[in-house]
């Protein structure tokens, strides 16, 4: 095995004396599996009196089943004690893949630390609450505990039922320590020594952390009062933790591990041959965008009102009124041209806070409608759905499982199962109430505001409302034209009468086509012929705004939903003992138990004949019970 170039890290944060160290799962992968126990050491002797220096005296030893779980080790002081530095150690774990924490105290181990001056050895100080199930504590008895040096060693800890869960390298894995550091001013002396954390016999999997550094912040009442870096050096111990407490570590930092059986990785120059990628796997959160802060209504160019059906009736009455005064104004200004749209939207329009109902004027003409102004842009939050895996196997992902989403106003769209499986799926529409257009966002994440946009679709949900305006103004034009024609034809009396009638009409505002017809009837055949043309001219001009298409958005299902096509698999759980499950890892065979099939092996160290070696390899590849 070769794990030469890894630079591990621990992120160490301290908020109100609670410190968290996060360790990336790559650490697991980079540690050797040569059976050794690895200690993470610092060289500080005891006797420091600040929490900062205390943290520099952390010993770590990691020995655990590979990368399956995340664990939290919480060392907290007793709030009522002013002498004890550490009162108890609380250990609990939770699976990182399910994001569900095991609730303490089910997997809680509490290890009390005695008062200063009392001899303290590991064994016998485990208090296991009910439900702890199979946990044990087998700390070495050789760790001294003298004076004010507090040594707490966790020599062994079963993984309780954690080991029953599969190793899942595709999931992020962290293990985490949380230390509560005694407040500034208290003497924080000693060494915290985490010994080997082991699982059940046969489950051990020892790896090495190449290098670790911690960055520490300390806050008091929210203020950052200290920040420092801590480097942790490495020690390679052979078995247990008997010689670590108290003394500084004087060993050299471990260099890259060279695998004599497979020397190519660190000895040959393979820098240009691939395989050395450091993979920037960080992901930038592309969240759902907020609405624009400026819109047409705020600029004053366009107003949008939210109407009731009764308002529409009032508006129509106005637009189709043949009252002479309205008719002339409409003929003159043609207000329907100023009405950009009248449409349905399948949701209530947002009204700005503090807005009051106002008279709707079109080109300065009061339509008689009173309505609330609305916003141009608004967001509709359709909420979330958490898509959970079914079998927790590869069958939960593509191409075996297919996921589609129905979006109102858009229809059904196919999603990449890998994007949304085991995620909270959020649907948000950003809508333009003027055009009815919208953009639908499908995002995944725990919270909507932090969710990452995976898909965006455009749609249009406005259902235009047919709008018309009768323009009687032309009728009056026709009447005036007829009157002028009669005058030109020398029919003075009739012409005067017609002109008077027409003038009177204009003056009185009685826009009446019958007036024009009456005038025409008085001027003889020629006039009648002219009147015939005028009749054609005088038909109301119908101006249409919008169309009757696009109403389908009103008829569709009104909420998003998912359609999930899942494989219908037969029970497989009992297959493990008979056929095993896929593994794919490179492991020492002693790490395996039960039925195992070896894919590839170069057998060595076996004092057997060639024929026997071949038979062993054949048997291993055919499946053996280890």
């Amino acid at each position, binding site marked *: 095995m070769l794990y030469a170039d890894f630079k591990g890290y621990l992120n160490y944060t301290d908020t109100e004396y609670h410190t968290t160290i996060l360790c990336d799962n790559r650490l697991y992968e980079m540690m050797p*599996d040569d059976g050794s126990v690895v200690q993470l050491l610092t060289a500080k002797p005891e006797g420091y009196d600040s929490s900062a220096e205390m943290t520099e005296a952390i010993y770590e030893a990691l020995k655990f089943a590979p990368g399956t779980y995340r664990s939290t080790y919480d060392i907290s002081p007793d709030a009522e004690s002013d002498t004890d530095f550490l009162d108890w150690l609380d250990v609990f774990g939770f699976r990182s893949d399910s994001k569900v924490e095991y609730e303490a105290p089910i997997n809680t181990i509490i290890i009390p630390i005695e008062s200063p001056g009392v001899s303290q050895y590991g064994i016998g100080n485990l208090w296991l609450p009910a439900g702890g199930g199979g946990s044990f504590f087998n700390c070495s008895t050789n760790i001294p505990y003298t004076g004010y040096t507090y040594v707490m060693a966790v020599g062994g800890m079963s993984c309780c039922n954690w080991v029953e869960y599969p*190793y899942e*390298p595709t999931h992020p894995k962290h293990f985490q320590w949380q230390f509560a550091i005694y407040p500034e001013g208290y003497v924080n002396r000693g060494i915290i020594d985490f010994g080997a954390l082991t699982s059940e016999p046969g489950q051990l999997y020892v790896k090495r952390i190449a290098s670790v550094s911690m960055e520490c912040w300390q806050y008091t009442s929210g203020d950052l009062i200290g920040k420092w870096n801590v480097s942790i050096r490495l020690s390679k111990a052979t078995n247990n933790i008997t010689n670590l407490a108290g003394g500084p570590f004087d060993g050299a930092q471990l260099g890259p591990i060279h695998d004599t059986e497979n020397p190519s990785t660190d000895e040959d120059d393979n820098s240009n041959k691939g395989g050395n990628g450091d993979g920037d796997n960080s992901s930038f959160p592309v969240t759902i965008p907020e609405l624009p802060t400026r819109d047409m209504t705020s600029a004053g*160019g*366009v*107003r949008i009102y*939210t*109407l*009731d059906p009764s308002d529409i009736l009032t508006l129509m009455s106005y637009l189709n009124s043949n009252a002479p005064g309205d008719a002339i104004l409409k003929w003159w200004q043609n207000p329907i041209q100023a*009405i950009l*749209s*009248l449409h*349905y*939207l*399948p*949701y209530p*329009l947002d009204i700005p806070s503090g807005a009051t109902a106002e*008279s709707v*004027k*079109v080109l300065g003409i009061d339509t008689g409608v009173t309505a609330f102004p609305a916003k141009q842009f608004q967001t509709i939050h359709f*909420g*979330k*759905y958490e898509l959970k895996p079914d079998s927790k*196997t590869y069958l939960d992902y593509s191409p075996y499982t297919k996921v589609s989403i129905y979006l*109102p106003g858009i229809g059904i769209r196919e999603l990449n199962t890998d994007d949304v499986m085991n995620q909270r799926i959020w649907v948000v529409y950003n809508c333009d*109430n003027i055009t009815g257009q919208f953009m639908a966002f499908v995002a995944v994440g725990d919270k909507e505001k932090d969710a990452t946009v995976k898909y965006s679709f455009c749609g249009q949900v*406005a259902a235009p409302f047919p709008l018309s305006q009768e323009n009687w103004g032309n009728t009056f034009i026709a009447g005036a034209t007829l009157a002028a024609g009669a005058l030109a034809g020398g029919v003075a009396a009739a012409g005067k009468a017609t002109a008077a009638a027409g003038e009177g009409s204009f003056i009185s505002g009685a826009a009446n086509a019958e007036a024009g017809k009456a005038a025409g009837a008085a001027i003889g055949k020629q006039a009648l012929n002219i009147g015939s043309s005028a009749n054609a001219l005088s038909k109301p001009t119908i101006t249409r705004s919008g169309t009757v298409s696009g109403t389908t*958005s009103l008829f569709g299902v*009104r*909420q998003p*939903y*998912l359609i*999930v*096509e*899942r494989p*219908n*698999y*037969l029970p497989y759980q009992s297959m493990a003992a008979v056929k*095993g*499950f*896929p*593994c*794919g890892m490179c*492991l*020492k065979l002693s790490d*395996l138990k039960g*039925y*195992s*099939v*070896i894919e590839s*092996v170069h057998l060595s*160290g*076996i*004092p057997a*004949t060639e024929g*026997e070696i071949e038979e*062993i390899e054949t*048997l*291993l590849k055919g499946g*053996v019970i280890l």
Partner: protein
Amino acid sequence: MSFKCNLYTTLSERTALDKTMEPGGIELEGTLINSSNIINPSIHIYRSAETLASYNYMVIPNFNRRYFITDVQALTAETCIVSGHVDVLSTYKGAIRENTAVIARAENKWNLYLDDNLIKVSSIPKILTKQYFDGGYFTKNPGIALVVVGGNNQ
């Protein structure tokens, strides 16, 4: 040259590295017949076939090997030839376990997110419609928007 043979009965799987021996094993003397070898030995044993019939496993300390008994052939009423084949897994189990290998399948270290064609899948899928999202929705009574150029102050 004679040597010791320990005969046992085991009910363990043939492919198991650790085999459990049932009580009642016996230690006998035997001699290797001329044409056999230590991988597939055939051994003269002075016991009746009835006596040896219940054993299926033997250990020959002189050969440092463990064997499956493959045949018991009666030569006389009191003499048998016991044939065996070396149990390489049990014989070398310690050294085998020290080797590192790429593991295709395992009972205790696995990852079910790797493709596995041994899980049987029906050709009839489950097609599920999941419940609505838990937030807002389009309303049955639509909003009505009137869009006017120029605003209300003209």
